[in-house]
């Protein structure tokens, strides 16, 4: 991790080497370590430090980009030279000028707490999971898992005078337990900017073991349409796909988003409000983007009504609006996307959601969800690690896993109820979102499997 002063020095070194002030530096520095668990014990313990320095040159509408192997003067000079040469090749375009002001607060988290995450001792991780692993072993359960802590510094600077710098860190622990015959359970916890306390790690273990034991001896169930109660981890997968397919300005402008041409109309259930907010205490994320712009709080869908996507400067120019500060490294093919997504929970007590369900399924997690059709956001995936039949308002037993094929625009229009348990979860293909449990109608399961 780089202090603000050290990061400033490296950026200044690049600007001194550059023949133009139209140069941009993106500097990431990370440090952390991880523990992988298999067979109720550690299977890998890894530590990684990394620095990534990317340089973009923008001259007379032409741009070039390069990444340096290191931050020493020879490496940054070489990368700068590559970026300058690349910029000569680029056809001239009307590119927005590089940022010259530093904007508002840079966001992120306190340096001290992020450093604690970066330096979190491997022995402490072992100590935190020891009791859980020993208990599982004595019960004859198979435990796998992943526990990692990481701290990072992120810097954006330009030769025109913009300099932004922040620290971000994360601790996360997930664990999957196998309980024969046929049982599996998962639980997890993630915190931004602070370590996981002992009791939270222990609670993950207890929840995963209980879910695995409860899901033993699953019975076969016919595919078909069911009411589904999606726990946050399952809901998070679907929320992330809805966002990737629909909440970025690039797809919106291309007509590939379910928001395209529908701003101001009811597109989803009135029970749902989606927003992107780096300032939310569960994220405490960066308040600037990869163009050095302020990352704004954006309401994407309010009570089911489409409000608009997130923008970067190139798409905003094309769309006749202003950036919301959601740019990735430029130039970007995929365009801007959400970074701190929240499905706001304004619902009823999660424990009551099941009460009115005559026959439905409780889903703990989805596996390998993937996008089939972007406009209706049709996706397919499998249930995993604890799927249970609900009859007359209560769980009556575990069932074998099922495959679903479903339009998410439909699913998020058929929400019967939203829980009050909104929390930070990590979907299968990465990222993190805040979502509560959701009760949805008419969810289509299209085939079954053998376990």
């Amino acid at each position, binding site marked *: 991790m780089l202090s603000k002063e050290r990061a400033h020095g490296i950026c200044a070194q690049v600007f001194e080497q550059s023949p133009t002030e139209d140069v941009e530096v993106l500097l990431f520095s990370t440090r952390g*370590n991880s523990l*992988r668990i*298999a*067979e*109720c*014990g*550690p*299977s*890998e*313990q890894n*530590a*990684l*430090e*990394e*620095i990534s320095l*990317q340089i973009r040159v923008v001259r007379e509408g032409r*741009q070039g*980009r*390069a*990444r*340096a*192997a*290191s931050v020493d003067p020879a490496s940054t000079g070489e*990368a700068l030279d*590559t970026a300058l040469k690349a910029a000569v*090749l*680029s056809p001239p375009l009307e590119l927005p000028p590089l940022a010259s002001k530093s904007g508002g607060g840079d966001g992120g988290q306190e340096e001290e707490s992020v450093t604690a995450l970066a330096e979190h*001792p*491997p022995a402490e991780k*072992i100590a935190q999971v020891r009791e859980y692993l020993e208990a599982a*072993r004595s019960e004859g359960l*198979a435990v*796998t898992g*992943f526990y*990692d802590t990481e701290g990072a510094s992120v810097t954006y600077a330009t030769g025109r005078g913009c300099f932004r710098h922040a620290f971000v860190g994360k601790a996360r622990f997930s664990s999957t337990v*196998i309980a024969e015959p046929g049982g*599996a359970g998962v639980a997890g916890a993630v915190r931004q900017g602070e370590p996981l306390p002992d009791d939270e790690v222990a609670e993950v273990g207890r929840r995963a073991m209980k879910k695995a034991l409860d899901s033993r001896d699953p019975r076969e169930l016919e595919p078909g349409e069911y009411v589904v109660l999606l726990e946050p981890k399952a809901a998070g997968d679907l929320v992330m796909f809805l966002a990737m397919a629909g909440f970025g300005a690039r797809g919106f402008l*291309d007509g*590939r988003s379910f928001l395209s041409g529908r701003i101001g109309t009811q597109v989803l259930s009135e029970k749902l409000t989606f927003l992107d907010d780096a300032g939310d205490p569960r994220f405490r994320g960066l308040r600037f983007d990869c163009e050095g712009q302020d990352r704004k709080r954006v309401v994407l869908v309010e009570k089911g009504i489409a409000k608009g996507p997130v923008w970067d400067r190139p798409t905003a120019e094309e769309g006749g609006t202003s950036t919301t500060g959601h740019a990735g490294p430029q*130039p970007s*093919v995929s365009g801007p996307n959400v970074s701190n997504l929240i499905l706001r929970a304004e619902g009823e007590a999660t424990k009551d959601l099941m009460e009115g369900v005559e026959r439905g399924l409780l889903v703990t997690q989805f*596996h*390998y*969800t*993937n996008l*089939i059709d*972007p*406009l209706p956001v049709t996706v*397919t*995936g*499998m249930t*995993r690690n604890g799927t249970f039949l609900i009859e007359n308002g209560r769980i009556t037993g575990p069932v074998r*896993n099922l*495959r679903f*094929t479903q339009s998410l625009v439909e699913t998020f229009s058929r929400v019967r109820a939203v829980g009050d348990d909104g929390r930070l979860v990590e979907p299968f293909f990465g990222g993190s979102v805040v979502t509560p449990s959701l009760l949805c109608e008419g969810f289509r399961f*299209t*085939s079954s*499997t*053998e*376990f």
Partner: protein
Amino acid sequence: MDGQKLSPTLYEAIARAGLERASAMGASYADVRIVHEKTRILGVRLGRIGRIEQAETFGIGVRVLVGGAWGYAARPEVEEACASELAARAVEAARAGSPLRARPVDLTEEEPARGHWSSRWEEDPFEISMEEQFALLFEADEILRKNAAIRSTFCTMSFLREDQWLYTSEGTAVSQTALRSGAGITATAVGEGAVQTRSYPASFGGQYEQRGYELVRGFDLPGNAERVREEAVALLTAPPCPGGEFDVILGGSQLALQIHESVGHPNEFDRVLGFEADLAGRSFVTPEKRGSFRYGSPIVDLVADSTLDRGLATIGWDDDGVPARRWHVVEKGIHRNYLTNREFAKRLGDERSRGANRAWGWRYPPQIRIPNLSLMPGDAGTLEDLCEDMGEGFLLDTVKTWSIDQMRLNFQFTTEIGWKIERGKKAHLVRNPTYQGITPGFWASCDAICGPSEWIPWGVPNCGKGQPMQLAEMSHGCAPARFRGLTLMGG
């Protein structure tokens, strides 16, 4: 070596510093890997440069075995002091975890290796000017845009050169250089309430091989752009693919992903033992199935080969220092062998590793990865011959989306394009063709495979595995093949 950043003696001295520190602190085994990666990625979207990046990384990773537990530490700083410090950090972590392991890690025997290996290429893509490379992409992009229904395009090429030096406490000292190239074009049409995409020569960035720029020249991207564009537009109004059970021919690039997901991953022996359960899942190919389980029909031969010409996973040695090998995973439809490294070969009871231990650059420790894994060609002639022989059915090609369950049994794939085959010929397009099945039943239904003239080593450049997630590259050689009574879901 062109990729040499330091002198050979310096590499050895740096590695020795790490190995000696690890040994002094009680490591029973240690290795040091130094990796230099150079990449270039160029892309054009709708007449504008979408990607222009050249990057280098240079780093070192130290792996140790202490008290039967692994430890690993890595940093982008290739110096003796750094190697020593990383060794100490790795030992400290391994020692903390050792008492909690159910059983200590044990490795199969392996003779120390020495030498250098390099992939082959004719034209170094990094020596070709970006100007020339962009000119090719802009030419293809301009053709793709000549229809108002095309709302998005992407024409790209990418190159990766990796130089690696591996030193182990057992005396292995090897270096290797691998260069791979890739390119492809994509057009997305929007209209009629639909979005349809076509790609060439494959989707998700195109086709990748362990070759130089001659690969890109051979694709003739501009020459294929008009067809790609018109197919994307035609798919908007094509009838949806019907549902039901049909005879289906899968094109090579689609079948390659099927091999990857339903044969490659389930045969990683660490996954079989449950080591991947928290993320990617486990496997239905449990150990008692070895040698007797019917995986597919008698014409199905699936061969792992780390020596395959042009394969993305072709190596001199794996990251355990095990020389490249070739072996049957499935022979005449019967399961024969798994994919192993030294740790998991020992658990399986094999005398030697299959040499499938590979890491993503210097950042992470190696793990069992799918090597080049191919379906051997059959005797069904060309694709045209096979369509003629089928008479009625469907031809589906080019990956659009994929999903498979955590035991690698229930899969569902959607392809970019499908054709209804009538009287042995392509009759018309169908959109959103989606097929679904259970792995052993799917491979059992394979009754014809095209011959060597249709066989291509399709590259997969983005296989994710592990926590933290690592990427790996591999190729799956195959020719189009026919599957009887496959379930289509309806478009």
